[in-house]
């Protein structure tokens, strides 16, 4: 592997993906899309971890990614369950409709 990929490139990609995910979270009102956008952001973070790990040749980045993966799994399962409940309660996926659950 002579021409290696500079770590910045991967990190820049991660940043862009993260920003896109953020935009998704902010723009969409559909809770399903918000969850999807969250996945994008998690994935971008994971990408940044891998890139950093690869840069230093350490396994830690990959381990972090594994942990992110586990977190993502847990989050998605709970999140989707909540989506189902929300839909049951409000007959809509509009996240703002759930705002009356505020403290």
């Amino acid at each position, binding site marked *: 592997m002579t*021409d290696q990929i500079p770590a910045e490139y991967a990190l820049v990609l991660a940043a*862009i993906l993260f920003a896109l995910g953020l*935009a998704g979270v902010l723009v969409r009102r559909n809770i*399903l899309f918000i969850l999807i956008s969250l996945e*994008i952001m998690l994935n971008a973070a994971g990408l940044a971890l891998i890139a950093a790990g*690869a840069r230093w040749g350490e396994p830690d980045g990959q381990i972090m990614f594994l942990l992110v993966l586990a977190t993502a799994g847990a989050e998605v399962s709970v999140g*989707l369950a909540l989506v*189902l409940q929300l839909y049951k309660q409000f007959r809509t996926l509009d996240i703002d409709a759930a705002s009356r659950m505020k403290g």
Partner: protein
Amino acid sequence: MVTLFFIAAAVAIIATFMVITHLEAVHALLHLVVSLLAVALIFYLLGAPFIAALEVIIYAGAIMVLFVFVVMVLNLGPLTREQETRWLRPGMWVAPAILSGVLALELVYVLLGGQKPLSVSSGVDVKEVSHSLFGPYLIAVEVASILLMAGLVGAYHIGRGWKGKAR
């Protein structure tokens, strides 16, 4: 390889953009799968084949399938599509888009802030990963497993009362 990277990156960005702008959930999910696959390729290029595999199997596979299931259960009709169209007027998305754009620019500026390119070392062994995973990170692994367990129980508990009623 750099070329490969650029292609994959372009695919990922375009696909992600499609994800957050699409009106139909299923379509968006398909785009997301594409994006994830592109990122998996980049993992591979960065010398983490094991992670690339996991990305494909768990993210693009398991998690996306969950989403698809939920979408199917919800059985969203054209009504939702109309709603989405209504929600996605410029007034709604301009401000968040600018916000995210600023963040992205800041991050990029930080990353490319005039330093020498940081070259990537040649890959990390799976074995190495496993050693540290079950060595120093053992507790993290255990915590993650507990988290997953909690997620499982939580999802079950929250989703239990659900009796899907199609419209």
